[in-house]
Protein backbone atom coordinates (compact mmCIF):
# COMPACT_ATOMS: atom_id res chain seq x y z
CA UNK A 1 0.00 0.00 0.00
CA UNK A 2 2.77 2.40 0.95
CA UNK A 3 4.53 1.58 -2.27
CA UNK A 4 1.37 2.26 -4.30
CA UNK A 5 0.85 5.58 -2.56
CA UNK A 6 4.44 6.62 -3.19
CA UNK A 7 4.24 5.55 -6.82
CA UNK A 8 1.02 7.43 -7.47
CA UNK A 9 2.19 10.55 -5.59
CA UNK A 10 5.44 10.58 -7.53
CA UNK A 11 3.60 10.18 -10.82
CA UNK A 12 1.16 12.95 -9.94
CA UNK A 13 4.01 15.32 -9.15
CA UNK A 14 5.75 14.65 -12.46
CA UNK A 15 2.51 14.79 -14.43
CA UNK A 16 1.49 18.09 -12.85
CA UNK A 17 4.86 19.63 -13.69
CA UNK A 18 4.64 18.39 -17.27
CA UNK A 19 1.09 19.65 -17.61
CA UNK A 20 2.09 23.15 -16.50
CA UNK A 21 5.04 23.08 -18.90
CA UNK A 22 3.05 21.86 -21.92
CA UNK A 23 0.12 24.21 -21.36
CA UNK A 24 2.47 27.18 -20.93
CA UNK A 25 4.25 26.35 -24.18
CA UNK A 26 0.92 25.92 -25.94
CA UNK A 27 -0.57 29.18 -24.68
CA UNK A 28 2.53 31.29 -25.28
CA UNK A 29 3.29 29.85 -28.69
CA UNK A 30 -0.32 30.07 -29.88
CA UNK A 31 -0.49 33.71 -28.79
CA UNK A 32 2.92 34.43 -30.28
CA UNK A 33 1.83 33.01 -33.61
CA UNK A 34 -1.28 35.24 -33.67
CA UNK A 35 0.85 38.31 -32.98
CA UNK A 36 3.45 37.34 -35.58
CA UNK A 37 0.79 36.62 -38.18
CA UNK A 38 -1.43 39.63 -37.67
CA UNK A 39 1.12 42.28 -36.72
CA UNK A 40 4.23 41.22 -38.58
CA UNK A 41 2.71 39.12 -41.34
CA UNK A 42 5.02 36.22 -40.59
CA UNK A 43 5.11 33.17 -38.29
CA UNK A 44 7.25 30.32 -37.07
CA UNK A 45 7.08 27.46 -39.54
CA UNK A 46 7.09 24.72 -36.90
CA UNK A 47 4.95 26.79 -34.49
CA UNK A 48 1.53 25.47 -35.46
CA UNK A 49 2.51 21.78 -35.56
CA UNK A 50 4.17 22.19 -32.17
CA UNK A 51 1.02 23.75 -30.70
CA UNK A 52 -1.01 20.81 -32.04
CA UNK A 53 1.53 18.45 -30.53
CA UNK A 54 0.99 20.17 -27.19
CA UNK A 55 -2.76 19.48 -27.42
CA UNK A 56 -2.00 15.77 -27.66
CA UNK A 57 0.41 15.97 -24.71
CA UNK A 58 -1.85 18.10 -22.53
CA UNK A 59 -4.79 15.85 -23.36
CA UNK A 60 -3.08 12.65 -22.26
CA UNK A 61 -1.27 14.03 -19.22
CA UNK A 62 -4.50 15.79 -18.16
CA UNK A 63 -6.37 12.52 -18.63
CA UNK A 64 -3.83 10.67 -16.46
CA UNK A 65 -4.38 13.19 -13.67
CA UNK A 66 -8.13 13.02 -14.20
CA UNK A 67 -7.89 9.25 -13.69
CA UNK A 68 -6.04 9.85 -10.44
CA UNK A 69 -8.62 12.34 -9.21
CA UNK A 70 -11.58 10.30 -10.40
CA UNK A 71 -12.77 13.06 -12.70
CA UNK A 72 -13.35 11.19 -15.94
CA UNK A 73 -16.78 11.63 -17.43
CA UNK A 74 -18.94 8.75 -16.31
CA UNK A 75 -22.54 7.96 -15.46
CA UNK A 76 -22.73 8.26 -11.71
CA UNK A 77 -26.48 8.64 -11.25
CA UNK A 78 -27.05 5.03 -10.23
CA UNK A 79 -24.05 4.43 -8.00
CA UNK A 80 -25.16 7.39 -5.89
CA UNK A 81 -28.00 5.31 -4.50
CA UNK A 82 -25.86 2.35 -3.45
CA UNK A 83 -24.75 1.79 0.12
CA UNK A 84 -21.13 2.81 0.85
CA UNK A 85 -19.93 -0.80 1.08
CA UNK A 86 -21.52 -1.82 -2.22
CA UNK A 87 -20.29 1.38 -3.82
CA UNK A 88 -16.74 0.59 -2.78
CA UNK A 89 -17.04 -2.89 -4.27
CA UNK A 90 -18.43 -1.43 -7.51
CA UNK A 91 -15.56 1.05 -7.55
CA UNK A 92 -13.02 -1.78 -7.33
CA UNK A 93 -14.69 -3.62 -10.20
CA UNK A 94 -15.06 -0.57 -12.47
CA UNK A 95 -11.51 0.61 -11.74
CA UNK A 96 -10.11 -2.78 -12.71
CA UNK A 97 -12.31 -2.94 -15.80
CA UNK A 98 -11.17 0.57 -16.75
CA UNK A 99 -7.52 -0.38 -16.23
CA UNK A 100 -8.06 -3.44 -18.41
CA UNK A 101 -9.64 -1.31 -21.16
CA UNK A 102 -6.93 1.33 -21.15
CA UNK A 103 -4.25 -1.37 -21.17
CA UNK A 104 -5.63 -2.71 -24.44
CA UNK A 105 -5.92 0.84 -25.76
CA UNK A 106 -2.22 1.23 -24.93
CA UNK A 107 -1.48 -1.93 -26.92
CA UNK A 108 -3.50 -0.65 -29.87
CA UNK A 109 -1.63 2.65 -29.64
CA UNK A 110 1.68 0.82 -29.56
CA UNK A 111 0.62 -0.93 -32.75
CA UNK A 112 0.01 2.49 -34.31
CA UNK A 113 3.45 3.69 -33.21
CA UNK A 114 5.11 0.60 -34.73
CA UNK A 115 3.30 1.13 -38.04
CA UNK A 116 4.25 4.79 -38.05
CA UNK A 117 7.91 3.89 -37.42
CA UNK A 118 7.92 1.96 -40.69
CA UNK A 119 5.85 4.22 -42.88
CA UNK A 120 5.54 7.61 -41.17
CA UNK A 121 6.98 10.93 -42.27
CA UNK A 122 8.22 13.75 -40.05
CA UNK A 123 6.27 16.31 -38.02
CA UNK A 124 8.71 19.23 -38.13
CA UNK A 125 12.41 20.00 -37.88
CA UNK A 126 13.21 16.44 -38.92
CA UNK A 127 11.49 14.85 -35.92
CA UNK A 128 9.92 11.57 -37.11
CA UNK A 129 6.17 11.34 -36.62
CA UNK A 130 6.32 8.23 -34.39
CA UNK A 131 8.04 10.31 -31.69
CA UNK A 132 5.09 12.68 -31.72
CA UNK A 133 2.54 9.95 -31.15
CA UNK A 134 4.58 8.10 -28.54
CA UNK A 135 2.56 9.94 -25.89
CA UNK A 136 -0.55 7.95 -26.86
CA UNK A 137 0.62 4.52 -25.59
CA UNK A 138 2.58 6.17 -22.76
CA UNK A 139 -0.48 8.19 -21.77
CA UNK A 140 -2.75 5.15 -21.77
CA UNK A 141 -0.18 3.30 -19.62
CA UNK A 142 -0.17 6.16 -17.10
CA UNK A 143 -3.96 6.10 -17.01
CA UNK A 144 -3.87 2.33 -16.51
CA UNK A 145 -1.55 2.72 -13.54
CA UNK A 146 -3.80 5.35 -11.94
CA UNK A 147 -6.90 3.19 -12.41
CA UNK A 148 -5.09 0.21 -10.85
CA UNK A 149 -3.95 2.26 -7.88
CA UNK A 150 -7.49 3.61 -7.40
CA UNK A 151 -8.88 0.08 -7.53
CA UNK A 152 -6.27 -1.22 -5.08
CA UNK A 153 -6.89 1.66 -2.71
CA UNK A 154 -10.61 1.05 -2.66
CA UNK A 155 -10.06 -2.68 -2.17
CA UNK A 156 -7.66 -2.15 0.73
CA UNK A 157 -9.80 0.53 2.31
CA UNK A 158 -12.15 -2.28 3.36
CA UNK A 159 -9.73 -3.15 6.10
CA UNK A 160 -9.76 0.34 7.49
CA UNK A 161 -6.34 1.23 6.17
CA UNK A 162 -5.38 3.97 3.75
CA UNK A 163 -8.13 6.57 3.78
CA UNK A 164 -8.15 8.10 0.35
CA UNK A 165 -8.49 11.84 -0.16
CA UNK A 166 -10.99 12.05 -3.01
CA UNK A 167 -10.85 14.54 -5.83
CA UNK A 168 -14.12 16.41 -5.41
CA UNK A 169 -16.68 17.55 -7.98
CA UNK A 170 -16.31 18.97 -11.46
Amino acid at each position, binding site marked *: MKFLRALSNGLVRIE*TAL*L*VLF*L*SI*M*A*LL*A*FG*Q*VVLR*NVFGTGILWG*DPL*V*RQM*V*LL*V*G*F*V*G*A*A*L*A*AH*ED*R*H*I*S*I*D*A*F*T*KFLSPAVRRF*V*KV*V*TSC*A*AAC*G*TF*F*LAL*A*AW*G*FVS*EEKVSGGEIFLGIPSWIG*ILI*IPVGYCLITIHFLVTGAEHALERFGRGRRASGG*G*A
Partner: protein
Amino acid sequence: MTTFLWGLLLVLLALFGTPLFVIFGAAAMLAFVGAEISPSVIMVDLNRIFMNPTLIAIPLFTFAGYMLAESKAPTRLVNLARAVFGVIPGGLGVVTLVTCALFTAFTGASGVTIIALGGLLYPILLKEQYPERFALGLVTTSGSLGLLFPPSLPLILYGVVSSLSIDKLFAAGLVPGTILLVVLAAFAIQRGWANGIPRTRFAWSNVRSAARAVIWELPLPVVVIGGIYTGTFTATEAASVTAFYVFVIEFFVYRDLSVKKDLARVMKDSMLLVGAILMIIGVAMGLTNYLVDQEVPGKLFDFSKQFITSPAMFLVILNIFLLLVGMMMDIFSAIMVIVPLIMPIAEAYGINQVHLGIIFLTNLEIGYLTPPVGLNLFISSLRFGRPVFSVVRATLPYILILLVALVLITYVPQLSLWMVDALNAK
Protein backbone atom coordinates in the same frame (compact mmCIF):
# COMPACT_ATOMS: atom_id res chain seq x y z
CA MET B 1 -24.34 -14.10 -29.05
CA THR B 2 -20.88 -13.10 -27.86
CA THR B 3 -21.46 -9.65 -29.36
CA PHE B 4 -24.61 -9.37 -27.29
CA LEU B 5 -22.83 -10.46 -24.11
CA TRP B 6 -20.00 -8.00 -24.66
CA GLY B 7 -22.51 -5.25 -25.31
CA LEU B 8 -24.40 -6.10 -22.15
CA LEU B 9 -21.19 -6.14 -20.12
CA LEU B 10 -20.14 -2.73 -21.44
CA VAL B 11 -23.56 -1.18 -20.78
CA LEU B 12 -23.54 -2.55 -17.23
CA LEU B 13 -20.03 -1.27 -16.61
CA ALA B 14 -21.03 2.13 -17.99
CA LEU B 15 -24.11 2.31 -15.77
CA PHE B 16 -22.01 1.49 -12.71
CA GLY B 17 -19.67 4.38 -13.38
CA THR B 18 -16.83 3.09 -15.54
CA PRO B 19 -15.41 6.11 -17.38
CA LEU B 20 -17.23 6.47 -20.69
CA PHE B 21 -14.09 6.84 -22.77
CA VAL B 22 -13.04 3.34 -21.71
CA ILE B 23 -16.46 2.00 -22.70
CA PHE B 24 -16.30 3.66 -26.13
CA GLY B 25 -12.71 2.54 -26.58
CA ALA B 26 -13.53 -1.05 -25.67
CA ALA B 27 -16.55 -1.05 -27.98
CA ALA B 28 -14.43 0.29 -30.85
CA MET B 29 -11.67 -2.27 -30.24
CA LEU B 30 -14.15 -5.15 -30.10
CA ALA B 31 -15.82 -3.93 -33.27
CA PHE B 32 -12.55 -3.73 -35.20
CA VAL B 33 -11.21 -7.03 -33.88
CA GLY B 34 -14.54 -8.61 -34.84
CA ALA B 35 -14.18 -7.23 -38.36
CA GLU B 36 -10.60 -8.56 -38.42
CA ILE B 37 -9.12 -5.08 -38.68
CA SER B 38 -6.23 -4.06 -36.42
CA PRO B 39 -7.54 -1.89 -33.55
CA SER B 40 -4.61 0.43 -34.14
CA VAL B 41 -6.82 2.21 -36.73
CA ILE B 42 -8.66 3.72 -33.74
CA MET B 43 -5.40 5.47 -32.90
CA VAL B 44 -5.05 6.73 -36.46
CA ASP B 45 -8.45 8.42 -36.07
CA LEU B 46 -7.54 9.65 -32.60
CA ASN B 47 -4.34 11.22 -33.87
CA ARG B 48 -6.14 12.80 -36.82
CA ILE B 49 -8.76 14.50 -34.66
CA PHE B 50 -6.17 15.66 -32.11
CA MET B 51 -4.25 17.31 -34.94
CA ASN B 52 -7.37 19.23 -36.04
CA PRO B 53 -6.33 22.90 -35.73
CA THR B 54 -9.71 23.90 -34.25
CA LEU B 55 -9.21 21.55 -31.31
CA ILE B 56 -6.56 23.92 -29.91
CA ALA B 57 -9.42 26.24 -28.95
CA ILE B 58 -10.66 23.73 -26.36
CA PRO B 59 -7.73 23.77 -23.88
CA LEU B 60 -7.16 27.50 -24.35
CA PHE B 61 -10.76 28.59 -23.79
CA THR B 62 -11.11 26.19 -20.85
CA PHE B 63 -7.96 27.57 -19.26
CA ALA B 64 -9.26 31.11 -19.73
CA GLY B 65 -12.64 30.14 -18.30
CA TYR B 66 -11.11 28.57 -15.20
CA MET B 67 -8.92 31.63 -14.60
CA LEU B 68 -12.04 33.82 -14.79
CA ALA B 69 -13.95 31.50 -12.47
CA GLU B 70 -11.15 31.51 -9.89
CA SER B 71 -10.72 35.28 -9.96
CA LYS B 72 -13.19 37.85 -8.66
CA ALA B 73 -14.56 38.37 -12.18
CA PRO B 74 -17.92 36.76 -11.28
CA THR B 75 -18.47 39.28 -8.46
CA ARG B 76 -17.55 42.22 -10.68
CA LEU B 77 -19.80 40.99 -13.46
CA VAL B 78 -22.73 40.47 -11.11
CA ASN B 79 -22.30 43.94 -9.63
CA LEU B 80 -22.48 45.53 -13.05
CA ALA B 81 -25.49 43.45 -14.07
CA ARG B 82 -27.28 44.38 -10.84
CA ALA B 83 -26.66 48.06 -11.43
CA VAL B 84 -28.19 47.72 -14.89
CA PHE B 85 -31.05 45.25 -14.35
CA GLY B 86 -31.86 45.79 -10.65
CA VAL B 87 -34.54 48.30 -11.58
CA ILE B 88 -36.84 45.83 -13.33
CA PRO B 89 -39.04 43.43 -11.35
CA GLY B 90 -37.29 40.11 -10.87
CA GLY B 91 -34.13 41.98 -11.81
CA LEU B 92 -31.82 39.71 -9.88
CA GLY B 93 -33.28 36.75 -11.73
CA VAL B 94 -32.43 38.42 -15.01
CA VAL B 95 -28.96 39.21 -13.67
CA THR B 96 -28.49 35.53 -12.89
CA LEU B 97 -29.56 34.47 -16.36
CA VAL B 98 -27.47 37.02 -18.24
CA THR B 99 -24.26 36.60 -16.25
CA CYS B 100 -24.51 32.81 -16.25
CA ALA B 101 -25.12 32.70 -19.99
CA LEU B 102 -22.05 34.84 -20.63
CA PHE B 103 -20.00 32.79 -18.25
CA THR B 104 -21.10 29.45 -19.64
CA ALA B 105 -20.19 30.53 -23.14
CA PHE B 106 -16.65 31.05 -21.89
CA THR B 107 -16.31 28.09 -19.56
CA GLY B 108 -18.02 25.52 -21.74
CA ALA B 109 -20.97 24.31 -19.72
CA SER B 110 -19.04 21.98 -17.50
CA GLY B 111 -20.54 22.79 -14.16
CA VAL B 112 -18.11 25.64 -13.54
CA THR B 113 -20.92 28.16 -13.90
CA ILE B 114 -23.02 26.65 -11.11
CA ILE B 115 -20.02 26.39 -8.81
CA ALA B 116 -18.60 29.85 -9.47
CA LEU B 117 -21.62 32.02 -10.27
CA GLY B 118 -24.48 29.99 -8.81
CA GLY B 119 -22.63 29.79 -5.52
CA LEU B 120 -22.35 33.56 -5.57
CA LEU B 121 -25.90 34.37 -6.70
CA TYR B 122 -27.97 31.79 -4.80
CA PRO B 123 -27.43 33.35 -1.34
CA ILE B 124 -28.13 36.83 -2.73
CA LEU B 125 -31.34 35.61 -4.35
CA LEU B 126 -32.49 34.17 -1.03
CA LYS B 127 -31.49 37.32 0.84
CA GLU B 128 -33.58 39.41 -1.51
CA GLN B 129 -36.57 37.19 -0.67
CA TYR B 130 -36.87 35.23 -3.86
CA PRO B 131 -38.68 31.94 -3.08
CA GLU B 132 -36.19 29.19 -2.45
CA ARG B 133 -37.60 26.87 -5.06
CA PHE B 134 -37.48 29.58 -7.71
CA ALA B 135 -33.89 30.44 -6.83
CA LEU B 136 -32.72 26.83 -6.83
CA GLY B 137 -34.33 26.13 -10.19
CA LEU B 138 -32.93 29.34 -11.60
CA VAL B 139 -29.28 28.72 -10.73
CA THR B 140 -29.55 25.10 -11.86
CA THR B 141 -31.05 26.06 -15.21
CA SER B 142 -28.59 28.90 -15.73
CA GLY B 143 -25.70 26.45 -15.46
CA SER B 144 -26.01 25.43 -19.08
CA LEU B 145 -27.65 28.51 -20.54
CA GLY B 146 -25.34 30.19 -23.00
CA LEU B 147 -24.35 26.94 -24.64
CA LEU B 148 -25.40 28.37 -27.99
CA PHE B 149 -23.26 31.48 -27.66
CA PRO B 150 -19.67 31.59 -28.89
CA PRO B 151 -17.14 30.50 -27.88
CA SER B 152 -18.85 27.57 -26.11
CA LEU B 153 -16.97 24.28 -26.26
CA PRO B 154 -19.92 22.16 -27.40
CA LEU B 155 -20.40 24.49 -30.39
CA ILE B 156 -16.71 24.21 -31.29
CA LEU B 157 -16.75 20.45 -30.85
CA TYR B 158 -19.86 20.16 -32.99
CA GLY B 159 -18.00 22.02 -35.71
CA VAL B 160 -15.00 19.70 -35.41
CA VAL B 161 -17.11 16.56 -35.62
CA SER B 162 -19.48 17.69 -38.36
CA SER B 163 -16.84 19.54 -40.42
CA LEU B 164 -19.27 22.46 -40.57
CA SER B 165 -17.73 25.90 -40.34
CA ILE B 166 -17.42 27.09 -36.74
CA ASP B 167 -18.22 30.62 -37.87
CA LYS B 168 -21.53 29.49 -39.33
CA LEU B 169 -22.42 27.64 -36.13
CA PHE B 170 -21.47 30.64 -34.02
CA ALA B 171 -23.70 32.87 -36.12
CA ALA B 172 -26.55 30.36 -36.09
CA GLY B 173 -26.54 30.03 -32.30
CA LEU B 174 -27.00 33.73 -31.64
CA VAL B 175 -30.76 34.13 -32.14
CA PRO B 176 -31.85 30.78 -30.62
CA GLY B 177 -29.54 31.39 -27.65
CA THR B 178 -31.11 34.81 -27.16
CA ILE B 179 -34.60 33.31 -27.37
CA LEU B 180 -33.82 30.87 -24.55
CA LEU B 181 -32.46 33.75 -22.51
CA VAL B 182 -35.47 35.99 -23.17
CA VAL B 183 -38.18 33.43 -22.35
CA LEU B 184 -36.48 32.55 -19.09
CA ALA B 185 -35.99 36.22 -18.28
CA ALA B 186 -39.70 36.80 -18.90
CA PHE B 187 -40.48 34.04 -16.41
CA ALA B 188 -38.08 35.55 -13.86
CA ILE B 189 -39.67 38.97 -14.27
CA GLN B 190 -43.17 37.52 -13.86
CA ARG B 191 -42.14 35.64 -10.71
CA GLY B 192 -40.41 38.72 -9.32
CA TRP B 193 -43.53 40.77 -9.96
CA ALA B 194 -45.89 38.17 -8.48
CA ASN B 195 -43.77 37.79 -5.34
CA GLY B 196 -43.45 41.53 -4.87
CA ILE B 197 -39.67 41.46 -4.70
CA PRO B 198 -38.35 44.94 -3.87
CA ARG B 199 -36.56 46.66 -6.75
CA THR B 200 -33.43 48.74 -6.55
CA ARG B 201 -33.31 52.27 -7.88
CA PHE B 202 -31.46 52.90 -11.09
CA ALA B 203 -28.55 55.30 -10.85
CA TRP B 204 -26.02 56.09 -13.52
CA SER B 205 -23.37 56.53 -10.85
CA ASN B 206 -23.80 52.90 -9.77
CA VAL B 207 -23.53 51.68 -13.34
CA ARG B 208 -20.46 53.79 -13.90
CA SER B 209 -18.60 52.60 -10.83
CA ALA B 210 -19.54 48.95 -11.43
CA ALA B 211 -18.47 49.26 -15.05
CA ARG B 212 -15.20 50.85 -14.03
CA ALA B 213 -14.45 47.89 -11.75
CA VAL B 214 -14.96 45.41 -14.55
CA ILE B 215 -13.37 47.58 -17.25
CA TRP B 216 -10.62 45.09 -18.10
CA GLU B 217 -12.95 42.13 -18.47
CA LEU B 218 -15.73 43.99 -20.23
CA PRO B 219 -13.99 44.01 -23.63
CA LEU B 220 -13.66 40.20 -23.58
CA PRO B 221 -17.08 39.17 -24.87
CA VAL B 222 -17.11 42.10 -27.26
CA VAL B 223 -13.67 41.39 -28.69
CA VAL B 224 -14.04 37.62 -28.81
CA ILE B 225 -17.60 37.42 -30.09
CA GLY B 226 -17.25 40.50 -32.29
CA GLY B 227 -13.90 39.34 -33.60
CA ILE B 228 -15.26 35.94 -34.54
CA TYR B 229 -18.45 37.33 -36.09
CA THR B 230 -16.69 39.91 -38.18
CA GLY B 231 -14.15 37.35 -39.33
CA THR B 232 -11.21 39.19 -37.76
CA PHE B 233 -10.28 36.11 -35.74
CA THR B 234 -10.72 32.41 -36.20
CA ALA B 235 -12.03 30.55 -33.15
CA THR B 236 -8.51 29.27 -32.47
CA GLU B 237 -6.96 32.72 -32.68
CA ALA B 238 -9.68 34.09 -30.42
CA ALA B 239 -8.86 31.33 -27.92
CA SER B 240 -5.13 32.15 -28.00
CA VAL B 241 -5.76 35.84 -27.46
CA THR B 242 -8.36 35.25 -24.75
CA ALA B 243 -6.18 32.88 -22.73
CA PHE B 244 -3.24 35.25 -22.85
CA TYR B 245 -5.30 38.35 -22.14
CA VAL B 246 -7.17 36.79 -19.21
CA PHE B 247 -3.89 35.53 -17.78
CA VAL B 248 -2.39 39.03 -17.90
CA ILE B 249 -5.39 40.82 -16.37
CA GLU B 250 -6.19 38.34 -13.60
CA PHE B 251 -2.58 37.76 -12.56
CA PHE B 252 -1.04 41.19 -13.14
CA VAL B 253 -3.76 43.85 -13.44
CA TYR B 254 -6.40 42.77 -10.92
CA ARG B 255 -3.97 40.47 -9.10
CA ASP B 256 -6.85 38.26 -7.97
CA LEU B 257 -4.59 35.30 -8.62
CA SER B 258 -0.92 34.83 -7.89
CA VAL B 259 1.51 33.08 -10.21
CA LYS B 260 3.18 31.34 -7.32
CA LYS B 261 0.10 30.19 -5.45
CA ASP B 262 -2.61 29.72 -8.07
CA LEU B 263 -1.20 29.25 -11.56
CA ALA B 264 -0.27 25.56 -11.35
CA ARG B 265 -3.52 24.70 -9.56
CA VAL B 266 -5.75 26.50 -12.08
CA MET B 267 -3.82 24.99 -14.98
CA LYS B 268 -4.18 21.52 -13.53
CA ASP B 269 -7.87 21.87 -12.70
CA SER B 270 -8.74 23.12 -16.16
CA MET B 271 -6.63 20.51 -17.94
CA LEU B 272 -8.23 17.67 -15.97
CA LEU B 273 -11.48 18.60 -17.65
CA VAL B 274 -9.77 18.99 -21.02
CA GLY B 275 -8.09 15.60 -20.66
CA ALA B 276 -11.43 14.01 -19.78
CA ILE B 277 -13.13 15.57 -22.82
CA LEU B 278 -10.28 14.80 -25.21
CA MET B 279 -10.18 11.14 -24.17
CA ILE B 280 -13.82 10.77 -25.17
CA ILE B 281 -13.28 12.65 -28.43
CA GLY B 282 -10.28 10.49 -29.28
CA VAL B 283 -11.81 7.03 -28.97
CA ALA B 284 -15.34 7.98 -29.99
CA MET B 285 -14.01 9.04 -33.39
CA GLY B 286 -12.81 5.50 -34.10
CA LEU B 287 -16.11 4.04 -32.96
CA THR B 288 -18.25 6.31 -35.12
CA ASN B 289 -15.99 5.85 -38.14
CA TYR B 290 -16.53 2.13 -37.78
CA LEU B 291 -20.30 2.63 -37.64
CA VAL B 292 -20.18 4.91 -40.68
CA ASP B 293 -18.04 2.33 -42.51
CA GLN B 294 -20.68 -0.27 -41.79
CA GLU B 295 -23.24 2.10 -43.34
CA VAL B 296 -25.21 2.20 -40.11
CA PRO B 297 -26.66 5.66 -40.86
CA GLY B 298 -27.94 4.40 -44.23
CA LYS B 299 -29.51 1.36 -42.63
CA LEU B 300 -31.10 3.50 -39.94
CA PHE B 301 -32.51 5.74 -42.64
CA ASP B 302 -33.91 2.81 -44.63
CA PHE B 303 -35.50 1.53 -41.45
CA SER B 304 -36.92 4.88 -40.38
CA LYS B 305 -38.29 5.63 -43.89
CA GLN B 306 -41.06 3.13 -43.28
CA PHE B 307 -42.41 5.09 -40.32
CA ILE B 308 -41.18 8.62 -40.73
CA THR B 309 -42.64 10.07 -43.86
CA SER B 310 -42.10 13.81 -43.57
CA PRO B 311 -39.35 16.15 -42.38
CA ALA B 312 -41.70 17.57 -39.73
CA MET B 313 -42.29 14.11 -38.34
CA PHE B 314 -38.58 13.44 -38.42
CA LEU B 315 -37.99 16.55 -36.33
CA VAL B 316 -40.51 15.42 -33.70
CA ILE B 317 -38.83 12.03 -33.41
CA LEU B 318 -35.42 13.71 -33.42
CA ASN B 319 -36.38 15.93 -30.50
CA ILE B 320 -37.68 13.03 -28.46
CA PHE B 321 -34.64 10.94 -29.30
CA LEU B 322 -32.19 13.71 -28.43
CA LEU B 323 -33.93 14.49 -25.16
CA LEU B 324 -33.52 10.82 -24.25
CA VAL B 325 -29.86 10.97 -25.30
CA GLY B 326 -29.43 14.10 -23.20
CA MET B 327 -30.82 12.28 -20.19
CA MET B 328 -28.38 9.41 -20.52
CA MET B 329 -25.20 10.91 -21.95
CA ASP B 330 -23.05 13.93 -21.32
CA ILE B 331 -22.95 16.50 -24.08
CA PHE B 332 -19.43 15.72 -25.29
CA SER B 333 -20.03 11.99 -25.69
CA ALA B 334 -23.35 12.71 -27.37
CA ILE B 335 -21.77 15.04 -29.91
CA MET B 336 -19.04 12.55 -30.74
CA VAL B 337 -21.20 9.45 -31.02
CA ILE B 338 -24.60 10.67 -32.20
CA VAL B 339 -23.81 13.52 -34.59
CA PRO B 340 -22.05 11.46 -37.29
CA LEU B 341 -24.94 9.00 -37.22
CA ILE B 342 -27.83 11.43 -37.51
CA MET B 343 -26.24 13.90 -39.92
CA PRO B 344 -26.73 11.76 -43.04
CA ILE B 345 -30.27 10.85 -41.97
CA ALA B 346 -31.21 14.47 -41.36
CA GLU B 347 -29.74 15.39 -44.72
CA ALA B 348 -31.89 12.75 -46.39
CA TYR B 349 -34.95 14.43 -44.87
CA GLY B 350 -33.76 17.78 -46.15
CA ILE B 351 -32.85 19.33 -42.78
CA ASN B 352 -30.24 22.07 -43.01
CA GLN B 353 -27.03 20.86 -41.33
CA VAL B 354 -26.36 24.08 -39.45
CA HIS B 355 -29.95 24.14 -38.20
CA LEU B 356 -29.54 20.51 -37.13
CA GLY B 357 -26.54 21.55 -35.04
CA ILE B 358 -28.58 24.15 -33.20
CA ILE B 359 -31.46 21.72 -32.62
CA PHE B 360 -28.99 19.16 -31.35
CA LEU B 361 -27.31 21.51 -28.89
CA THR B 362 -30.60 22.99 -27.63
CA ASN B 363 -31.88 19.50 -26.86
CA LEU B 364 -28.67 18.60 -25.09
CA GLU B 365 -28.79 21.85 -23.14
CA ILE B 366 -32.17 20.76 -21.80
CA GLY B 367 -30.66 17.32 -21.21
CA TYR B 368 -28.38 18.90 -18.59
CA LEU B 369 -31.51 19.44 -16.51
CA THR B 370 -33.46 16.25 -17.04
CA PRO B 371 -33.37 13.36 -14.59
CA PRO B 372 -32.00 10.76 -14.08
CA VAL B 373 -28.52 11.86 -15.12
CA GLY B 374 -28.73 15.59 -15.91
CA LEU B 375 -25.33 16.90 -14.87
CA ASN B 376 -26.61 20.24 -13.55
CA LEU B 377 -29.02 18.55 -11.15
CA PHE B 378 -26.19 16.76 -9.40
CA ILE B 379 -23.78 19.66 -9.38
CA SER B 380 -26.52 21.87 -7.99
CA SER B 381 -27.52 19.31 -5.38
CA LEU B 382 -23.89 19.02 -4.32
CA ARG B 383 -23.17 22.75 -4.36
CA PHE B 384 -26.28 23.91 -2.50
CA GLY B 385 -26.65 20.87 -0.24
CA ARG B 386 -30.18 20.06 -1.38
CA PRO B 387 -31.47 16.57 -2.23
CA VAL B 388 -31.53 15.82 -5.97
CA PHE B 389 -35.30 15.41 -5.78
CA SER B 390 -35.81 19.01 -4.59
CA VAL B 391 -33.57 20.27 -7.35
CA VAL B 392 -35.56 18.31 -9.93
CA ARG B 393 -38.84 19.71 -8.63
CA ALA B 394 -37.47 23.26 -8.60
CA THR B 395 -36.18 22.93 -12.16
CA LEU B 396 -39.40 21.54 -13.64
CA PRO B 397 -41.07 24.85 -14.64
CA TYR B 398 -37.85 25.94 -16.33
CA ILE B 399 -37.68 22.71 -18.31
CA LEU B 400 -41.23 23.28 -19.54
CA ILE B 401 -40.38 26.80 -20.67
CA LEU B 402 -37.25 25.59 -22.42
CA LEU B 403 -39.25 22.86 -24.18
CA VAL B 404 -41.58 25.49 -25.63
CA ALA B 405 -38.56 27.44 -26.89
CA LEU B 406 -37.15 24.20 -28.28
CA VAL B 407 -40.27 23.65 -30.38
CA LEU B 408 -39.89 27.16 -31.75
CA ILE B 409 -36.22 26.69 -32.55
CA THR B 410 -36.84 23.31 -34.16
CA TYR B 411 -39.73 24.25 -36.44
CA VAL B 412 -38.61 27.72 -37.46
CA PRO B 413 -35.25 27.11 -39.13
CA GLN B 414 -35.01 30.79 -40.09
CA LEU B 415 -34.32 31.62 -36.43
CA SER B 416 -31.02 29.79 -36.75
CA LEU B 417 -30.28 30.53 -40.36
CA TRP B 418 -31.01 34.18 -40.97
CA MET B 419 -28.08 35.32 -38.87
CA VAL B 420 -25.80 33.05 -40.92
CA ASP B 421 -26.95 34.86 -44.06
CA ALA B 422 -27.03 38.28 -42.42
CA LEU B 423 -23.42 37.97 -41.25
CA ASN B 424 -22.48 36.19 -44.43
CA ALA B 425 -20.63 33.64 -42.29
CA LYS B 426 -18.39 31.24 -44.16
